[in-house]
């Protein structure tokens, strides 16, 4: 409540600060704006920033540390009997206090000391919020007055405002980068925990995957084995089938769109193809599981082949269809980027359209096409839903596209679905798989980006 009030007050103060800064700057030169170093609005922003920013920083700092500070104060007031436990019982104590404070009833009858602590917690909390409100307002008004006092025709308000904005931009981009790093690190640490239990060599080169483990010592069950080769092989197989569908079809579609289709047809065709990319993969999954897989099985059976009802072929084919727009759209762009002058040069020598496309346009666009294909591959490797629905979960080590196989992403999904212990090798193995997946797709993307960059340099 107090915090909302503070935010509203801050918003008001910045608006007022803007107006004040502006009018004072104008007044300081008697209305002759050209004499100001910066235009009046920059003076306005300057004051507004001073009014809003310091208080906002305090606010953010408070939000981050208040809970911990208050809890620390509450705990220090409790008798040693309660506080001097190990880390776990201390954690429980904290949870109890928080639960009581927020009115969550636990089954147990609470210790009177804990009840008192909870009340104290609430009191301190309210006190903290009120003092934040007061201090925040003081800082904001102080900042406003300070900045207003500094307004002067020579004040380099524009430079200061722009520098502040620059810093804000840098912080935003840092957030994105740090998030990525955080994700990678958490993946890495969990994977390290996994590799402490399972030998990395066994994981990377073992040929048997069955992550089920006995939960209790007396339980009858497999001991779990984590050879990931069948998963890698399954991923490779399905990706291979998908690319075998997507690359020729996508490339031909791109060539047709950029070289043969009339501009009118092109404006229709391209968006329609790109709609394919917008269909949620679950929907492709339906199609794969309910239409493609039975179809493949029936055709296989009528040819006298034994086809499992969940086949790599069905999943790979549907995944290929899903990826077509990737390949076609990116390739279409790079083919269009080949300068018309090269085509003219070729036509001018008496080459036909197909010769020009084959011998000049495609070779010139090749690096871009390769990059498009690599991006498509990393997309295929990362695809989960279609495989989960259509190719099954059986970790077969096979090269037969008519068998059921499973992929890395599908296994990750199934390993983490439902209630899990987060420290059993079974669950942790998901992070090991995730790490491998991450490294592979990162490499593919980096190579693809490098290729694209090199290609750009050539024609710009």
């Amino acid at each position, binding site marked *: 409540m107090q915090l909302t009030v503070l935010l509203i007050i801050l918003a008001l103060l910045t608006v007022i600060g803007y107006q004040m800064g502006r009018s004072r700057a104008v007044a300081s030169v008697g209305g002759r704006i050209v004499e100001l170093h910066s235009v009046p609005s920059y003076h306005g922003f300057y004051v507004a920033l001073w009014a809003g920013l310091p208080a906002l920083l305090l606010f953010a700092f408070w939000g981050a540390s208040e809970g911990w500070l208050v809890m620390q104060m509450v705990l220090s007031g409790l008798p040693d009997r309660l506080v001097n436990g190990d880390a776990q019982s201390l954690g429980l104590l904290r949870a109890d206090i928080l639960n009581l404070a927020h009115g969550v009833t636990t089954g147990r009858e609470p210790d009177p000391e804990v009840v008192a602590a909870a009340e104290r917690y609430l009191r301190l909390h309210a006190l903290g919020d009120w003092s934040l409100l007061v201090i925040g307002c003081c800082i904001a008004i102080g900042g406003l007055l300070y900045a207003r006092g500094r307004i002067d025709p020579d004040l380099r308000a524009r430079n200061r405002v722009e520098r502040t904005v620059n810093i804000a931009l840098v912080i935003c981009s840092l957030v994105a980068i740090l998030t990525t790093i955080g994700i990678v690190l958490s993946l890495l640490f969990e994977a390290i925990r996994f590799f402490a239990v399972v030998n990395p060599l066994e994981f990377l080169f073992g040929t048997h995957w069955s992550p089920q483990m006995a939960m209790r010592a007396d339980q009858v069950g497999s001991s779990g084995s984590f050879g990931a080769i069948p998963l890698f092989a399954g991923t490779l197989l399905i990706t291979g089938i998908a690319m075998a569908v997507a690359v020729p079809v996508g490339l031909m579609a791109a060539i047709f769109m950029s070289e043969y289709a009339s501009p009118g047809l092109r404006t229709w065709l391209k968006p329609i193809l790109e709609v394919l990319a917008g269909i949620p993969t679950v929907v492709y999954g339906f199609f794969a599981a309910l239409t493609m897989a039975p179809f493949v099985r029936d055709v296989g059976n009528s040819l006298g082949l034994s086809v499992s009802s969940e086949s790599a072929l069905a999943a790979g084919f549907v995944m290929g269809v899903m990826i077509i727009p990737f390949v076609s759209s990116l390739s279409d762009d790079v083919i269009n980027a080949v300068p018309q002058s*090269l085509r003219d040069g070729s036509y*001018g020598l008496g080459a*036909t359209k197909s010769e020009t496309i084959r011998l000049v346009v495609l070779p010139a666009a090749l690096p871009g096409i390769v990059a498009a294909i690599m991006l498509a591959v990393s997309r295929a490797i990362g695809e989960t839903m279609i495989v989960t629905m259509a190719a099954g979960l059986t970790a077969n080590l096979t090269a037969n596209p008519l068998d059921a196989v499973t992929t890395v992403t599908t296994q990750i999904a199934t390993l983490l679905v439902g209630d899990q212990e987060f420290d059993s090798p079974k669950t942790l193995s998901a992070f090991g798989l995730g790490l491998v997946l991450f490294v592979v797709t990162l490499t593919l993307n980096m190579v693809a980006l490098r290729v694209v960059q090199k290609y750009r340099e050539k024609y710009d």
Partner: protein
Amino acid sequence: MSVQTHIPATAMASRPAAGIHGTKMVARDVKVFYGAKQALKGINLEIQENRVMALIGPSGCGKSTFLRCLNRMNDTIENCRVEGLIALDGEDVYGKNIDAVQLRARVGMVFQKPNPFPKSIYDNIAYGPRIHGIASHRDEMDEIVQTSLQRAGLWNEVKDRLREPGTGLSGGQQQRLCIARAIAVSPEVILMDEPCSALDPIATAHIEELIDELRENYTIVIVTHNMQQAARVSQKTAFFHLGDMVECDDTEEIFTNPRDERTQGYITGRYG
């Protein structure tokens, strides 16, 4: 792209021109439309064998458009329509017996901006001969590459780096590479659209020299904005203005004694 020939067949017969030079190409009442916009309003022109014809005129008057008609490069432009008659050796180039691909092997083109393919120097030259199946084995192809580069005056500069990309040459060298590439398919006519406009004076002088030598074996039509260049390299000059061909005569005549005052205005620099 549609073509209407409403010219009696007799008009196609090439008239003997002055001197020993026969007529290589004829344009009769050539009109070109880009959509509804008319770019050429009925051009009549004769291009003589083994001579250089310069096309001059202010920007946008239709020189490039006319040039592209001569080897049907306009076919590749959407909504471009050509009317009238264009003949090569007395044969209608839009007629049934010639298709655009064959025609362009006989009437080659060099563009304003050098446009080497992103291939090696060797493959740039060999491109045309390969697609037309001119050379039957490697030695023959090597021979063609060498003579083409020699004729284009580029051989000495590149003979040690034939496998390097053509795009790595300097602008002037690239343009000579493109000329060599055009020569390699042994065309009868070479069309050049402002071939020197992207080059420095030294490279330009090089190419002008080259054009003068090429005249022995080829018929050349060159578009240029440079009056001195037209005067130096051509024997005939045609002046275009707003889609019309105003005047065509011996180059000396045009530059010393123009009949039309628009021509006079242009070459003396009153507009353009």
